[in-house]
């Protein structure tokens, strides 16, 4: 994927949310206000284009918290570069979703 690839505003917002620490689907939904039917397909496309990558949480951690394990997403190097160019294209992106880490993974 080229670094100059142009993302849609929705995709850029999701990428920004993942970068900001909203690292699983539901948290991205909550942060962006987008419905599940938009967020999950978009995240699959971002993963297909190698802008984000996913991994499953360890079972032991989930067991300790008595919940099912989650699938977490993380930006790749290409994803970070694409996000940088998207921020220039969508200047309000950083204001909509501040980049502070909200949850440690």
């Amino acid at each position, binding site marked *: 994927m080229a670094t100059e690839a142009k993302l849609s505003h929705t995709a850029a917002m999701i990428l920004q949310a993942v970068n900001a620490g909203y690292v*699983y*689907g*539901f948290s991205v*939904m*909550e942060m962006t206000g987008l*419905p*599940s*039917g*938009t*967020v*999950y*397909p978009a995240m*699959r*496309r971002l993963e*297909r284009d190698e802008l984000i990558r996913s991994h499953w949480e360890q079972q032991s951690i989930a067991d300790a918290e008595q*919940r*099912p*394990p*989650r*699938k977490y997403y993380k930006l790749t190097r290409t994803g970070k570069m694409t996000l940088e160019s998207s921020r220039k294209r969508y200047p309000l992106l950083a204001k909509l979703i501040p980049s502070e880490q909200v949850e440690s993974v």
Partner: protein
Amino acid sequence: MTLQFAPVFRGGNLGLLRLASLLVPGQHREEWWREWRSELWHVRQACTPQGSVSWKGEREVTAFCLGAFQDAFCLRREAGQKKVPLATTKGSAAQCMFFLVTITAVSYGIALLCPGVRAEILSLRYRVPQNLTMIQSARYSQDSVPTISAEQVRMWRGRKQQIFDGFAFYQIVQKPVLTGSQEQVALRVARASSNLFELLSLPVRFASPGGEAHDDMPKLILSDAVWKREFGEDPLVSGRVVQVGLRRAVVSGVAPAGYWRLPGKVDAWLLEPDVDAVSDGAGFVVAHLTPSAAQERWSERWRMSAPTPDGTPDDFLCVSLAERTRESWDLFLFAVILAFLSLPATTSLPLGEYRLSSRRLSWSTRLRRWTFLGGKIALLLPIVYLVSLDLAYMRTTLDTPSSQYIQLVSSFSICLFGLRWALRDQRQRCPVCLGKLTHPARVGQPSRNFLAWNGTELICVGGHGLLHVPEIPTSWFSTQRWMYLDPSWEILFPESGLVSTGYF
């Protein structure tokens, strides 16, 4: 709202996700289901308060679940883009189907060109009425011999009957017929009682609605062949008066070809107003069973004893007309069933030579492969039927039993060999692109059969894999094996467009 509804909502949400998961391609389904189920748990925790159920929360959770369908469709679309195209080179699946369709069209064309075959196909529209029986003397085994006298029929008609409520009699005689063109031709004329066609429900073409002008004359119904040969296919033939032997008769219609299925070849039917007019001599009898007798559900063949005109009892054989006039379609179905039953004795049935492989084809690829096999067999059946009809009814001089025998034997043979071919062809095709495997190469030596494998190796031009066929089946290598090649082999194969990783 009470908590007793909570499991219902949870079950409903999981049901929605499960339904959506059916849209997800098989290779992604497990992970997709795991992720959405996990997310659903967290969504439910966030949206519904502990210890109670709220409509607002449940609505949010349901909306979340409905989004799963969009995600599933998205994955499905992406998988569809990676679908492996079918092989396009020589021996492709499309060529095979085209070949079969061509054979079907050619055999149907031949059927239309041959009058006998065309008549047989057209006669499929005719169904022999139920509860009709042919009566013959039990002293004769063959029903092609006339055995019942007209006097006998007259006697049966005159007596009160409990078994039969209608009799039709006919007697085939050679008669000189003087047609309108003043030409005299010798025809096989069936002198019959007037109710013969009515009893058999035989259709009559060009029947004149009137015809009362010659009510006193017997009616002559022409066969399709005589109408074409002697009357020049004249559609206004009805009402014409012709000389049949020493009597005059009025033509009252044409019997369509292929509908006459009773014993004897007939060129024309002379329907007498009364059976008394039929001279003495043996003929054939068709009788209609009374409703009460029909309900007895007697067998297809049964014997009865009845008095003869001279007062002594005699044995008669009654044969159901439906059983006697087995139609070509029944023979075909019987031959097909027989061929399917015989198939395992002639070739190995399984196509599962790929089971040893650790890789598993996607359901769409497998479905396409089985659809192709089903399509081949589906096209084979009309070919079997039409070709067997062509062989059986090409010569119109053959009698019905001989034609039926030829049809039965040819249907069985063609169907059996056709099914064998369909299976063998399937085994020699790549399971992914359905292209014919090519470039057979001998591998190994027969003398080293116990130390190494010895056989033939075929390759898919799309680079999907290799087929190893053992020359001598051994306990460790008894059936052919398919070896899948991974995408790294792509560059070696000419049909690179067929190569894709999306078929697993």
